[in-house]
């Protein structure tokens, strides 16, 4: 099997190289048969990469420790599910997963465009094949997943215990799906720049891919945060670690992109900006993979030792230079006929939302690379931690939330002040009243007051939008309120799906603000039978129960939680010790309610005194972060759902024998 995998990767590399040449040659010479063969090469490449991935999976499942990768990231006692997920537990496997996803997406694009976009699709596929060549080159020559051990060990050194968790099973594939699928819009943008076909074709063709990518980036970030919350045991879910930032930056830029393409579709503006944004998003997905995989952030010195780093950096710089060069070359062709007319317009709101999102992405980028820069420039490594990111991004987030309320209600082109007042009076009153109520209950932090008032304002604007739509349907089509609501959303799914995503975002924002400002932490060492208080709860440590399996040892504490003498819950935080990697881990006990989470960590066991140290967090509203994530998922699914009108439009376009399928109709209700 290892030989098969290695061979498959070599063939895949050759096929990818062939596909680049054939796509470009075929498109230039208009040679259909060559383009068809290039497409077949993409499909064959995908089959080869799949064979390689399956070979590695077989190695992992059969515990074939002659493979260095299996010996490093698996063991005989590892549960089967984690044998499967250890495919992305290490560097080589992660890159293999990247390549598998990339070639799969390229195959789908090749299939989707077999009769469409004859002018740009071959170039887009060539761009995807170039990216594939880079990753396949790494897999073939630099970080090879099928390298063999000199001596076959009897046992593997096991998957990192922190990764033996179901969130870690689904987080990397989600994030990578999000990362890799940005390649599709990027490839079409690059193809538009190469061919000079700079109309909206590239945007329309890849709109679903962009939303798909955003969806999985959202999931990836949420799963990662949830994993950190449940597994790391420090009571938080986001530490502004470089690895987290690497996942967050592409999400920010893709969010900006999804908004600004609407301006181009409606107003034919921001063409250069959109091309730049998608380039930046793709760059950041590569950059994210680079910093998590090369070790450059932990130290400049480890960078050169990892083998991968210098190649990756070269590829990144090349991509950035070539794409920027092409974009600058095309700028004269990208002049927009329309212009901004007023600050009080939807275009302006979207533009400023874009600037804030990119501003946040830049701040995160700067904070992430600052230690490396300072080490390189000044010789002293200066790190910035969570306080830096919170200080910079906190105020910017307020601006974004404000614009989230303004954008959907404000008119295109320009709005009169009178109009403005009539649209925003109700939401503004809701926002201000909420702020006053909070102030009345003695919440005085300016940030919290502003944040919650703005959230109420946004909720008000969304309610107004739904209200207007439902009322209009009730009067025009004479529908009952629930039916009007369902039809409103299903007939304008892009628009109202977007609003539902916004609801999710403000729910998550409430969760973030609540958990950041009002978290209570108690640390206490107790003996069995002793109690201590956390907020309104009494926690009583009953007993400590040890357990040993061949895979791990554990000690589980039984904690009885009461409130005003009434029993609330029994919680079982535990300390684990994984035997093969000789590594400890913690198992946090969480009791979650919409008001607050009780989060109990068994932080230490002192053998001498027989005392057990607990670290307990009472975190308000963190529930809403996860609920908001679910809401964003729901909203995105609604947005992506094939629309009846859109399907009719596509059918019509096909029946008219059009080459290019028109995008779905613009959102209604204008």
């Amino acid at each position, binding site marked *: 099997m290892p030989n098969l995998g290695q061979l498959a990767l070599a063939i895949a590399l050759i096929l990818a190289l062939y596909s680049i040449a054939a796509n470009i040659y075929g498109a230039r010479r208009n040679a259909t048969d060559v383009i068809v063969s290039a497409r077949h090469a993409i499909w064959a490449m995908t089959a080869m990469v799949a064979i390689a991935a399956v070979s590695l999976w077989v190695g992992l499942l059969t515990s074939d420790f002659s493979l260095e990768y299996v010996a490093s990231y698996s063991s005989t006692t590892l549960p089967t599910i984690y044998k499967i997920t250890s495919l992305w537990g290490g560097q080589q496997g992660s890159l293999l997963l990247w390549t598998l996803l990339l070639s799969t997406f390229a195959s789908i694009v090749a299939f989707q465009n077999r009769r469409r976009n004859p002018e740009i699709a071959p170039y887009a596929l060539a761009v995807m094949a170039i990216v594939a060549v880079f990753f396949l080159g790494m897999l073939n020559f630099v970080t090879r997943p099928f390298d063999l051990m000199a001596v076959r060990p009897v046992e593997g050194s096991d998957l990192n215990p922190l990764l033996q968790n179901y969130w870690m099973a689904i987080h990397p594939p989600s994030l990578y799906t999000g990362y890799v699928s940005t390649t599709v819009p990027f490839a079409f943008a690059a193809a538009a720049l190469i061919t000079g076909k700079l109309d909206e074709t590239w945007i329309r063709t890849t709109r679903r891919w962009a939303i798909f990518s955003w969806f999985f980036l959202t999931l990836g970030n949420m799963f990662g945060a949830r994993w950190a919350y449940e597994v790391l045991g420090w009571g938080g879910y986001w530490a502004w670690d470089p690895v987290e930032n690497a996942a967050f930056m592409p999400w920010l830029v893709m969010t900006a992109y999804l908004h600004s393409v609407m301006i181009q579709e409606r107003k034919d503006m921001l063409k250069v900006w959109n091309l730049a944004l998608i380039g930046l998003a793709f760059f950041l997905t590569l950059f994210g993979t680079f910093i998590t995989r090369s070790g450059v952030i932990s130290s400049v010195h480890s960078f050169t030792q990892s083998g991968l780093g210098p190649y990756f950096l070269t590829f990144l710089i090349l991509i950035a230079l070539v794409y920027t060069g092409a974009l600058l070359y095309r700028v004269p062709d990208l002049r927009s006929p329309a212009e901004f007319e007023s600050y009080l317009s939807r275009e302006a709101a979207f*533009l400023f939302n874009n*600037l804030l999102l990119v501003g946040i992405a830049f701040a995160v980028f700067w904070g992430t690379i600052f230690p490396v820069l300072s080490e390189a420039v000044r010789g*002293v*490594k200066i790190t910035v931690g969570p306080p830096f990111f919170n200080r910079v991004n906190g105020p910017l987030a307020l601006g974004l939330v404000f614009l989230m309320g303004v954008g959907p209600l404000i008119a295109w082109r320009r709005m009169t002040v009178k109009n403005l007042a009539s649209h925003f009076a109700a939401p503004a009153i809701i926002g201000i009243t909420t702020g006053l109520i909070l102030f009345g209950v003695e919440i005085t932090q300016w940030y919290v007051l502003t944040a919650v008032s703005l959230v109420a304002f946004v909720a008000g604007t969304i309610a107004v939008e739904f209200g207007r739509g439902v009322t209009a349907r009730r009067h025009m089509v004479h529908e009952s309120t629930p039916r009007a609501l369902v039809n409103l959303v299903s007939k304008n799914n892009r628009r109202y799906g977007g609003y539902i995503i916004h609801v999710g975002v403000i729910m998550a924002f409430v969760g973030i603000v609540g958990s950041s400002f009002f978290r209570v932490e108690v640390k206490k060492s107790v003996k069995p039978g002793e109690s201590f208080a956390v907020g309104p709860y009494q926690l009583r440590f009953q007993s400590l129960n040890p357990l040993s399996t061949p895979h791990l040892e554990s000690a589980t504490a039984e904690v009885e939680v009461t409130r005003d003498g009434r029993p609330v819950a029994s919680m079982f935080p535990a*300390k684990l010790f994984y035997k093969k990697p000789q590594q400890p881990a913690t198992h946090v006990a969480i009791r979650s309610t919409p008001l607050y989470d009780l989060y109990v960590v068994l932080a230490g066991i*002192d053998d001498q005194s027989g005392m057990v140290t607990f670290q307990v967090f009472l975190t308000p509203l963190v529930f809403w972060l996860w609920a908001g994530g679910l809401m964003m998922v729901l909203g995105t699914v609604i947005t992506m759902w094939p629309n009846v009108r859109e399907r009719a439009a596509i059918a019509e376009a096909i029946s008219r024998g059009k080459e290019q399928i028109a995008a779905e109709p613009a959102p209604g209700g204008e």
Partner: protein
Amino acid sequence: MRIRSRFFVGAGLIAVAVGYLIYAAIENTSEYYMTVNEVAARQASLEGQALRIAGRVSSGAISWDPVTLTLKFGMYQIPNADDDDAVKKVVVSAPPVFNVICVGQPKPDMFAPNKDVIVEGHLDGEGTVSATQVMTSCPSKYKPKQGQ
């Protein structure tokens, strides 16, 4: 063209605001990340500065009081942690050892003599590090393989 330039002003203001926030936050929140020897070399100038110090727990006296959550230990330079020649020249005789006191945190997992740790805190007058946090450097999956 006038309207266009007005938008550049708006965009410029946002850019300036972002830039200022970044600048101010770096001034206020940055920590020096140093090894034990680097700290020893410029001890005088670092007093009160927020530091993250990488070092190794010495095998001498480690005291842990679970009731008050007080951890005391000494830390010294990780051998060969830094291949910077300038630092090596500083170390001529007795290698510097800093005493670390960390109050109010649980003892980290894997804390033991000769383990590598990262300590966050301040250097006080007597060359003691009062730490807000002690982290055992974990074998992260993100670390590259060191050599072969």
